[in-house]
């Protein structure tokens, strides 16, 4: 079951590469949140209330509800156009993201380790590199935030694959970090929209040597 969910997750990455509307991106993020909840719910060895509440909070409330609503608000407030305006054509993006997935697949096959679940590993790494590619290839600041969130989703899957119990302090720290970074980045998109009358990367070129 987790395999199916994870493959669906990889499919959303491919969809992300060819989608051209901001709202589609946000819906994909919300959908990824639901998938992550499914995966982590199945993976839970012992359902203690604390763990369940924590995962529920992180995936459903945070990734599926709060962040998409917040991003919609930012887009509406700054009148960001619906097009994603990539630097590269969508077809090329599709090819690149597909090759990222194939490459991570090939890399994971070289690892000879029975304890590692390779599907997790492949999906996590492809999500990480897709996010990085997304940041590099899109023009809008808000798409950079979305790329960052895709990377964070990849990290989430990787941490499930590891399965090592992190101290609660660290878990809370991660959640807090994500929450605050998204909030801060969103606020700054708003500020940049106010001050510079636009939210494209081209406007951030004053500071250079």
């Amino acid at each position: 079951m987790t395999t199916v969910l994870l493959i669906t997750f990889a499919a959303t990455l491919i969809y992300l590469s060819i989608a051209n509307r901001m709202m589609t991106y946000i819906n994909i993020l919300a959908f990824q949140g639901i998938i992550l909840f499914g995966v982590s719910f199945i993976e839970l060895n012992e359902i203690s209330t604390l763990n369940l509440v924590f995962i529920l909070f992180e995936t459903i409330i945070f990734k599926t509800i709060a962040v998409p609503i917040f991003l919609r608000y930012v887009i509406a407030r700054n009148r960001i156009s619906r097009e994603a305006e990539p630097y590269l054509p969508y077809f090329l993006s599709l090819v690149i993201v597909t090759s990222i997935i194939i490459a991570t697949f090939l890399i994971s096959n070289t690892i000879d380790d029975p304890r590692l679940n390779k599907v997790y590993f492949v999906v996590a790494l492809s999500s990480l590199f897709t996010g990085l590619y997304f940041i590099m290839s899109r023009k809008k600041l808000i798409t950079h935030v979305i790329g960052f969130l895709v990377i964070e989703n990849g990290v989430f899957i990787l941490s499930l694959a590891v399965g090592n119990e992190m101290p609660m302090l660290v878990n809370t720290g991660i959640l807090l970090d994500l929450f605050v970074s998204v909030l801060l980045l969103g606020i700054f998109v708003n500020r940049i929209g106010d001050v510079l009358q636009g939210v494209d990367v081209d406007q951030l070129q004053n500071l250079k040597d």
Partner: protein
Amino acid sequence: MIAIYLLGSLLISALLFINRNKRVNYLLVGAFALLQWVLTIYEFIHRDESETYGYFKSDALALLMLTTLSIITIPAFYHSYIYFNKPEEHHRERGIYFMSIVILLAAVSGAYLSNHIAVTWVFVELTTLAASGLVYHHRDADALEGTWKYIFVCSISITFVFIGILFLSIALQQAGHADLSYPAMIEQAASLEPFWLRLAFIFIFTGFTAKLGLVPMYTAGIDAKDKAPSPAGALFSSVLMNMGFVGIFRFYEVIAKTSLHAWANQVIFIAAVLSVFVATVYMLKVQNIKRMLAYSSIEHMGLVMLGVAAGGIGYYAAILHLILHAFTKASMFFQIGQVYRIYKSKHISDTGNYFKYNLAGALALLLAFICATAMPPSGLFISEFMIFRSLFEGHHLFLFIVVLLLLTMIIWALGKSIFRLLFLPPVNFDETRAGKVSAGESVSQFILLGLVIYLGFNPPLQMVELIQDAVKNLPH
């Protein structure tokens, strides 16, 4: 104690945020400075003891860095006080500024003392948030751009560190362990799978370079130091960079026990030499004096990492260099704050004849220049000499020559700008509008620079012993 310290800092920062009164503000800041020193002394008394469920430990490296931080804290607060000593009242901006500084210093102290790689991670993340409050201080378009880039690059880097930690825990699990605290990892290092360790090192190293100021992630730090007020810039280029070093160094101690040691050294060599190279290229070109100093920090961090990678005497030299560089660069940033008040500009072409407008400050700047370029009697001369000796002894002759050539160019570039600022007459500068700076404001810089000279030539026995203790886990 560390728990009390962190809670106390949190409380003080919350009070600073809601407070509007100037006097209460300074009282709170004073209380924090006191707390910082109490922590430092407490940790010295309870050396090598674990605290708070074993998440923190006051080992030698932590003590050295903590003391450096506590020393720089006092002049940083003093210069922040001068910075806000304007006729018009900005209670809100002042509150946010001091709140951010208190959180930043507390998080940096926590990261120094932490004994668990994930705890270090949490505190490093916290410093990004606190620092962004300082970078955004001026609230104009440039500050906005600097803050955006800083938060973004640091967030990506910190994610990299986390991925590295995950790979590391895969390696640990395979060996049948789960403990991510540093002493446990050093003990079990030999039994870890090199493949996962290699991945972990690449990610953790890349991530921490954002804080340390090394290729590839150095860019964010440059904008941050330029845009933040100079007392904050002083903290960024001293204690915050030291924190990046601590993060890398503690994991390097683990790697050094494995078969990957030589490989890791090569990675560090590449990053370090590239950093010195990048610093040289930009220093020859930059016109903004604060950015110039920021690039000079990149160069010094490159040298520090060269010392670490070369090994031998290089380990000792690296830590000594780090401490002395912190004092030097902090005093330079404090001094640039005064330069800015006189000329209302950070551009070298707008400044000149500094001796005429601020004699004490000009002397401090001259001394700082001598210290930063590691000319005798600067203590950095000693540490740089030792770093080059370690390169020589490690048979890295080619690197040795390349880095020396680059350093020569850096001395020329920095000298050109600083001497222009000190001696040449300024162009288009209206003397009647020159700001007033009293000589007393340079006292703290002289003390810090005096410390750089003194600690280099006559290091106290306790410091030598601490540094040797800090590098005891590394092969000799």
